[in-house]
């Protein structure tokens, strides 16, 4: 207790050192490891169609075509980029897509039901990812959607 005044060296040193360790070394280490072992997730889950990057499975897109599933309007969610819609909303869109594409509504319904996410045991309620559904539809029916794609 003889020296009760903190001197400047540990104060400034600790501030600078903590910046280097917590602000640089830590995020850089995580970035390096993540880029090597989990590159898909680390770069934002960019999904591809015919070799082209067409979006992120986690970020909504404003689909307009009647042949595709539509996301929630951007001001309806908290993030503005909610990539999912409730299962019931997806099923409501099936007749519109079916009449625009002539794909049987039973086929579309089974695609929707086969791609339900969001429930783990007792947690959550069912929803579907809009971009994922659209890409499945496009890949399964290239001629119907050829005007849309590259």
């Amino acid at each position: 207790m003889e020296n009760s005044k903190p001197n400047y060296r540990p104060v400034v040193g600790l501030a600078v050192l903590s910046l280097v360790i917590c602000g640089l070394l830590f995020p850089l280490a995580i970035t390096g490891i993540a880029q090597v072992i989990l590159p898909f997730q680390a770069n934002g889950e960019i999904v591809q169609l015919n070799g082209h990057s067409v979006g992120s499975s986690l970020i909504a897109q404003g689909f307009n075509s009647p042949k595709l599933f539509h996301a929630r309007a951007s001001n309806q969610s908290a993030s503005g980029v909610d990539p999912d819609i409730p299962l019931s909303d997806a099923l409501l869109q099936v007749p519109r897509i079916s009449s625009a594409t002539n794909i049987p509504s039973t086929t579309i319904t089974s695609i929707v039901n086969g791609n339900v996410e969001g429930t783990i045991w007792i947690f959550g309620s069912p929803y579907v990812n809009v971009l994922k559904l659209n890409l499945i539809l496009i890949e399964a029916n290239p001629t119907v959607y050829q005007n849309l794609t590259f």
Partner: protein
Amino acid sequence: MIDAPQTLSLILILGSALGLAWLISPYLARVYRRTPSRFDRVLIPIEHGIYRLLGVDSGHVMGWKEYFLAGVLVNVVQMALAFLILTSQGFLPLNPQGFPGLSWDLSFNTVVSFATNTNLQHYAGESSLSYLSQMTAIQFLQFTSAATGMCMGIAMVRGFVVGSKDMGNFYVDFVRTLTRILLPFCFIAALLLVALGVPQTLGGYTSVTTVEGATQSILVGPVASLVAIMQLGTNGGGYFGANSAYPFMNPSQITDILEIGLMLLLPTALLFVFGELLGKKREVRPFLIGAYGLFIIDLAIAFIPTTPLGLGIETRIGGFMSAFWTVVTTAVTTGSVNTTLVAMHPLVILSAFMGMLIQATPGGKGVGLMYMMMYIIITVFVVGLMSGRTPEYLGIKITSRDVKLVMLAFLVHPIIILIPTVVAYASGAVAAIGLGGGAVGFTQVFYEFTTSAANNGSDFLGTLANTPFFNVSTAMVILVGRYAPIGILMALGGSMIGRKRSVVSGLKTESFTFSIVLIGTILVLVVLTFFPFLALGPILSYFQGNVNGFG
């Protein structure tokens, strides 16, 4: 009301968080006791290298004044460094989007907010901060503010330990908190988050062409490393303006539950650490029953209404988990949000206010422990008055100076919340940002100062409050709200050293009855102090029929 599966999921999430906190608490206690551990072979050389570099004598011990002052000074230099980075980010590297430096008042507000574990954000990160700023200003301060809070809480506890002679050494505690707790825990959490879909890259924003031919910019960055410490350190400031509602910060139900767990982990574990350090595990009971008893009352208020999926709520998260998160994040004063607060029912907001005004349910890590100690001393004093006996806690006679200190610590918050709220209206600052005087506007302004004082950080206003008045006034409230109560409670802890202890304790603070009295005392104190403002805000809003949140 909530249904059976929801109730079960609540019990499972809270039960797992409590269990995990209990499991790690002996390890945390060993870190602060400097007990030899199997990690020493790697960490001791690193830590000793750091002490040598800094000129720290690890054997030097501090009294409360030196300990507290060291912490404050280190925080001030950290704020200055982050301030320089934020204001000059336009000239610094790792800025692929070319964002210019922030204004002085916004930078001041931001560094004060992050260095104090508040994380009130008057900016949207994705459209104003470079990667370097996100890492070396935001994430850096999230680590250090968490470490500072934990050190202060632990140091105060040391004062209460039988036979203690000092508060420890701030520099040593700070370094060990980082090397042995925050960095390794965040390392695991960050990689887990990446695996679950949170990005971690320094490449610029990715541009894609959608199947309809539109161009879309995917806003990525070093997000996972930030989310790990923002939740684990009960910081709450997000990489993106939409915080944990943004899919890249919280991609799924699983990450939502994981992040709730991360928030609860350290504040809860530190309650057990108190018992470990004290050597009397039964004394944890009033802390634990008090904190979680009040937390369950908060949950009961929040779940009177049902929160359906609707405007301002993310599909993957849903209404129930959004309301639950809102209660948790204010109960541990994290302040992250996975929804828009305007989407929340007034009763959920009332519950959020309770968390922020009590600050000990279980509160921020380290600091929540300090506040609960404050309430316990007040309760011991009140019970002493009622029974006509000398108030004693842990066998220590509670003197009038102790009671004055805890009352002073308690009174800081009413003063720095209620007065600025009134000033904001009287000065025209509220009208200047277009908020009305009704229950909705009042709630938002009252929330702004409450969240600042409680070092919580969630808010209704966001970038709307990026005005010199709100930037400076909230920064002042944040500074006083952080350092005044911590300093006072450090003084209380420091004054316990060397006090005489009676062997037979009159009041059994470990009894269930005491915990119930404690909960009652806290409710009476907090509700009586803030009732008029709560009545004009969320309660009035509820009776005006704003059942679908604050429109």
